[in-house]
């Protein structure tokens, strides 16, 4: 079941990063698009960590 959830994440990231990085389908990705897709996944994970960490802090401080 954990594997199914991981797969769902990959599907979600593919859609999100496709929207961010791919303008027009061409016969091959250029290196910029390829790099964009990789960075998109990495930055999204970074954002998730930042948001989750900050939220945990708020909850601890009773700020929310």
């Amino acid at each position, binding site marked *: 079941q954990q594997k199914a959830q991981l797969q769902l994440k990959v599907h979600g990231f593919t859609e999100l990063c496709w929207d*961010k990085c791919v303008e027009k389908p061409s016969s091959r990705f250029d290196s910029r698009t390829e790099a964009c897709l990789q*960075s*998109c996944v990495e930055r999204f994970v970074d954002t998730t960590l930042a948001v*989750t960490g*900050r939220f945990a802090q708020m909850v601890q401080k009773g700020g929310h």
Partner: protein
Amino acid sequence: AQELLQRMTDKCFRKCVGKPGSSLDNSEQKCIAMCMDRYMDAWNTVSRTYNSRLQ
């Protein structure tokens, strides 16, 4: 809070990270923090308004 975190992350990533680079730069980090605060404000306003409407 899982649902809130997921939707907030998604919205703030889309709003704050234009073309993703090799790391989150300073302005992107600030934007994400601010976006979180506002998103939670919005959630609170919506929640309050909807609850009082239901009564």
